């Protein structure tokens, strides 16, 4: 049977969006999201919450192999969002990545164009853990001085891949990092040390 979406679509979407907005505006800070969702596995409640809050028929969504292998996930997202699913990460507005440890290289996703840098992919990654502390050292817009973010698992090639992504600014992808109950943002404007 199809699992339910947001109990209160208007205010649940708003709550998830504000957490995501704050997370991207203040990289390194961690924000609570309590989506109250029970999506079909392996989709996590946090990935589902971001998808339900932000995607619709105007946004192509790419699923990583772990999610794409579960037809219930595609059915759930199609029913609740109407978003078209794409197999081409270079055409995706949003990419849902369940297995962050196997995240494809960032350059395979859309980076936008010099005239329209907003035509880029937003990656939403499900992590096992996300906490302030030693790991990635962040600086740039939205950060007072520096911020430290510890995440596990670290996607392959990170943090070098994030530095390369930032070097292409204003082109590049933006990342939303989720873990149970929480979300943080890594926009392309953030410089990542280690």
């Amino acid at each position, binding site marked *: 049977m199809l699992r339910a979406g947001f109990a209160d*679509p*208007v*205010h649940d*979407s*708003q*709550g998830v*969006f*504000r957490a*995501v*907005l*704050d997370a*991207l*505006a*203040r990289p390194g800070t961690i924000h609570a999201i309590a989506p109250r969702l029970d999506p079909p596995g392996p989709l996590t409640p946090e990935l589902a919450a971001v998808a339900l*809050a*932000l*995607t*619709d028929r*105007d*946004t192509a969504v790419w699923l990583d192999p772990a999610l794409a292998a579960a037809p219930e996930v595609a059915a759930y997202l199609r029913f609740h969002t109407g978003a078209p699913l794409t197999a081409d990460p270079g055409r995706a*507005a949003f990419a849902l990545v369940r297995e962050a440890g196997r995240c494809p290289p960032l350059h395979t996703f859309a980076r936008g*164009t*010099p*005239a*329209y*840098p*907003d035509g*880029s992919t*937003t990656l939403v990654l499900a992590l096992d853990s996300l906490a302030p502390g030693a790991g990635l050292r962040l600086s*740039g*817009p*939205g*950060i*007072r001085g520096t911020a430290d973010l510890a995440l596990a698992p670290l996607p392959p090639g990170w943090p070098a891949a994030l530095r390369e992504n930032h070097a292409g*600014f*204003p082109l590049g992808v*933006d990342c939303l990092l989720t873990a149970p109950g929480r979300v943080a943002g890594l*926009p*392309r*404007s953030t410089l990542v040390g280690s």
Partner: protein
Amino acid sequence: MSDMREFRPGADPSSRLPPRSGDDGVAGALPPQAGRGDEASAYNFAYLDEGTKRMIRRALLKAVAVPGYQVPFASREMPMPYGWGTGGVQVTAAILGRSDVLKVIDQGADDTTNAVSIRRFFAKTAGVATTTHTAEASVIQTRHRIPERPLTENQTLVYQVPIPEPLRFLEPRETETRQMHALAEYGLMHVKLYEDISRHGHIATTYAYPVEVAGRYVMDPSPTPKFDNPKMDDCPALQLFGAGRERRIYAVPPYTKVRSLDFEDHPFRVQRFDQPCALCAAEGVYLDEMLMDDSGRRMFICSDTDHCEERRAAGHVGTEGVA
């Protein structure tokens, strides 16, 4: 839209400011409009439909990720004319939640037509709490001022923007200005500022003074007086900009470098005022000139009405004020 206030000649000057309490919490107090019954409940929360909000929210996320870049968005018709803040209203509607406390200012004032009508609009369509006190607000929608009280990390400032493109009056073609931003080709703007110097001896731009955001995009700070430009730099609050007619959204994240363009030998300077506020004696704030009577008597008072009221309540008295 106008900043004009009506006065009765001969009255005590401080009483000439119109009363400002009483227009909040209007949701229940407004008379029902003829023949339409309880029309507010027929709208979605904060007026916009969810699809529109999602579209605006996605644009906002891009705007935050690329500070100063103008993200195109599918601006909607709003129940107010272009030029009255349709862009700011759409941004506010997209971010607003039930627990937000909304403040709306027009040229620093909470009590002018534009500010009152937008505040009522959201009190009615979203049922959110409203305030005139800067410190109490979580979302502040503004037309052309930044409050005098320093903003905090828990606040979001939403600007109403008429012309988002800083290069528009130098280059009318959107295709060209887009390329200029793509190439970070901002020489034309420096030529414009230089022409100011050659003609007037100083940079004569006093509002909508161009800024460079995070070392990359040149951005129009909206027609705020250049007095407010330094407040945008390294600001703890998130700053969002909405231009409804021109269909653009842009943003400055918190703690972001915002530099007013200038030259080494003509550094950026803000306006200075010779005298303090006539009502509250505040110095170092932006002042409005108020005509007092037909013979041209005038006084200068705080543009930020909340700031002025708080100071007067705390006992500060200016030359025209009443203790």
